[in-house]
Every structure is written in structure tokens, then in C-alpha cells.
């Protein structure tokens, strides 16, 4: 049963590799910001699975914190690209 | 916004919610941690109490109850939405026909606009682009003709959200 989690984690790592193509190549800055947000979302799930596989309940708190950081990072990027500054 | 009574009520509700989060996330119940939790929750509640609770609001209990019932219908729509997107992406001919539409609604309060914008983003084939709070106007990017018609012609989602917040 525990090997299924390892297989799922390897598949998620493969999808992170696939979305790097859009992060490197995407014409313009908006495609790159969207791809980085996708990679951040998948990192959250990867942290939860690793925390479950290695039996360390501390990783669930870290993934909660990284979800908040990823959200605020994407919002800051969007505000800067729209107005030219983050705080007016 | 009312000056005195709204402020005290806001600080108390924010303090209770923050302290509840502290207790549920830590799981340790000895003296040092509980006192540290009370101090931290009080500081956060003083600094940012007007972000969570705005004014007094009327009939909050019945609105929360109807909102809880609305969430279950929306979860089913989310599952349908993802099967629709999966069909459009994995089909070898990719049947998409994107367009941008705009429409008016009768919702004016903050919570109702946010609920409708999130529901439009999570349901089949549409994403909210711009919201104008004075006239309740929405700009929406739709991916094909059928989801765009479900918003423009049928108006099922707008009437359900207006039923939850009672702002026909």
C-alpha cells in the first residue's frame, strides 16, 4: 500500500518536468508566471505525500505555509504587471 | 460602518477565531502554549480586525445556512466542469471556440460578488476577468458557446447566488 504513494509522487514529479517546458518557452511573461504557479501548486501535494511516506507529521504544517506563500507570490506578480508597482 | 459597537464585536470575533485555529493546529495543551496563544491572538485581533468582520450585517445565520446548502450543489458542478475540460483537451481535434462576454447582475455586497466570481471560475468553461462593484457588471472569458449560453441565457448560477444572499 505504501508503494502506491511513492509511484504517485514520481508521477507528480514527472508533471512538474513537463510544465517546465512552458516556463522556459512561453512567449511573454504571463505564460511563465502561470507555469510557476502550477509548479508551486504541485509542490504542496508533493510535500504532503513525502510527509506521509516518511512518517514525519511536521511536513503538513510546511505545506500549509507554502500554499499561503504561493498564493501571495502570484498575487504580487499580477499586481506588479498590471500597475508597475505593488504599493501605491 | 458603526463606530464603537462594530469595532468591539469585530475584535472579539477575530480573537475567538484566531485562538481556535491556534488550539486546533498545535495540539499541545499545557500552560505555556495556551498563554502564548492568547497573547498572539490578541495582537493579531487588534491589528487586523476589520479585514475579517465588516460592520454588523443582518440575518447572518440564515445566510450561512443557505450558503452551506449552496456549497454541495457547487461541488457537483466542479466535478462536471473538470470532465468537460478533460474532454476538450484530450480530444484529437480540440473543439474550442473562445470568446469574451459581459453581463449585469443585481448583486451589490462584497460577499455575494466574491461568491459569484469564484463559482464562475470553478464551473464549466468560464473564468471571471473583471468585476465592477458599482453596477454589478462582470466580464467573463468563455471557452465555447454552450457554457457562455448557460450564463447569458439561462442565468441559473446568478439566481442561486441571489437566493443565498437575498439580493434580487
Amino acid at each position, binding site marked *: *500500500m505504501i508503494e*502506491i*504513494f511513492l509511484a*504517485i509522487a514520481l*508521477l*507528480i514529479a514527472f*508533471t512538474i518536468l*513537463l510544465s517546465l517546458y512552458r516556463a522556459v518557452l512561453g*512567449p511573454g511573461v*504571463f*505564460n511563465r*508566471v*502561470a*507555469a510557476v*504557479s*502550477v509548479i508551486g*501548486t*504541485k509542490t504542496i*501535494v508533493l510535500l*504532503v505525500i513525502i510527509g*506521509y511516506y516518511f512518517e514525519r*507529521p511536521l511536513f*503538513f504544517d510546511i*505545506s*500549509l505555509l507554502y*500554499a*499561503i506563500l*504561493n*498564493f501571495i507570490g*502570484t*498575487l504580487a*506578480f*499580477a*499586481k506588479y*504587471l*498590471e500597475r508597475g508597482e505593488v504599493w501605491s | 460602518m458603526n463606530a464603537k459597537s462594530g469595532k468591539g464585536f469585530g475584535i472579539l470575533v477575530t480573537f475567538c477565531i484566531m485562538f481556535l485555529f491556534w488550539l486546533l*493546529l498545535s*495540539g*499541545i495543551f499545557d500552560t505555556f502554549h495556551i498563554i502564548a496563544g492568547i497573547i498572539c491572538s490578541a495582537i493579531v485581533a487588534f491589528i487586523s480586525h476589520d479585514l475579517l468582520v465588516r460592520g454588523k450585517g443582518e440575518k447572518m445565520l440564515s445566510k450561512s445556512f443557505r450558503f452551506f446548502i449552496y456549497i454541495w450543489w457547487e461541488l457537483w458542478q*466542479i466535478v462536471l466542469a*473538470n470532465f468537460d*475540460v*478533460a474532454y476538450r*483537451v*484530450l480530444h484529437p481535434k*480540440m473543439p*474550442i*471556440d*473562445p470568446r*469574451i462576454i459581459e453581463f449585469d447582475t443585481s448583486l451589490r455586497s462584497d460577499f455575494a460578488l466574491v461568491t459569484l*466570481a*469564484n463559482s464562475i*471560475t*470553478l464551473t464549466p468553461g468560464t*473564468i471571471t*476577468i*473583471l468585476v465592477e462593484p458599482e453596477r454589478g457588471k462582470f*466580464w467573463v*472569458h468563455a*471557452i465555447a458557446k454552450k457554457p457562455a449560453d448557460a450564463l447569458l441565457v439561462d442565468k441559473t448560477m446568478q439566481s442561486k447566488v441571489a437566493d443565498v444572499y437575498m439580493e434580487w
Partner: protein
Amino acid sequence: MVIIDVIVTLFLAAGIFFMFTGVIGLLRLPDFYTRLHATGKCDTLGEVLIIVGLLLDHIYYYVYLLPEAPLSVKLVPVKLIFLIVFIFLANPTATHAIMKAAYKTGVKPWKKGDARM
């Protein structure tokens, strides 16, 4: 093989299928706005399904079968439910914010019959 193992495997398989669909959409669709459709919807649901699968596994093996576990192990499902609620609220908002920035800066949408951009 207990029945809960089959249910958890179904949830995990559905979650990873939706994640693959999201990434294939990111690579295959012709325009920025349509790519956000694929990732904003499929990523959110795939994540939530995987975390719900892990939640069911944890509740069965660590809370129901081991009643003498310490309290910090019994409170892990609460943290995962916070994570699910936060993801449901935060991912569509971030998608909407980046789409609004693109629309106001003047990125052109794709109509049927244009070249790929």
C-alpha cells in the same frame, strides 16, 4: 486487501488523471487565456482529490485502528481539511488575478482560425 485500500487507490488515481490533463492542456492549447482554463480548474480538483485520498487513509489506519495515539496524530485530519478549504479559495482567486492583469495590459485573445500564439 481491505475495502478502504480500494477507495483510497481510486481517489489517488482520479487525482493523478486530472493533474495529467491539466499539464497536457498547458502544453497543447493555443492561447494564454485557454491555458489558464486548463490549469485553474484541473489542478485544483486533482490536488483536492489526492489530499482527500490521503486523509481517508490516515483516518482509517492511525485514528480508527490505533485509539491510543497521541493527540498531535489525531489532529492531522484537521490540518488537511484547512489545506483543502484554502486551496479551494486561493487557486481560483490567483487565476482571476493573473487573467485580469493580462487583460488590462493588452494580451489579445485567440479567435478560431488564428495562428497559434
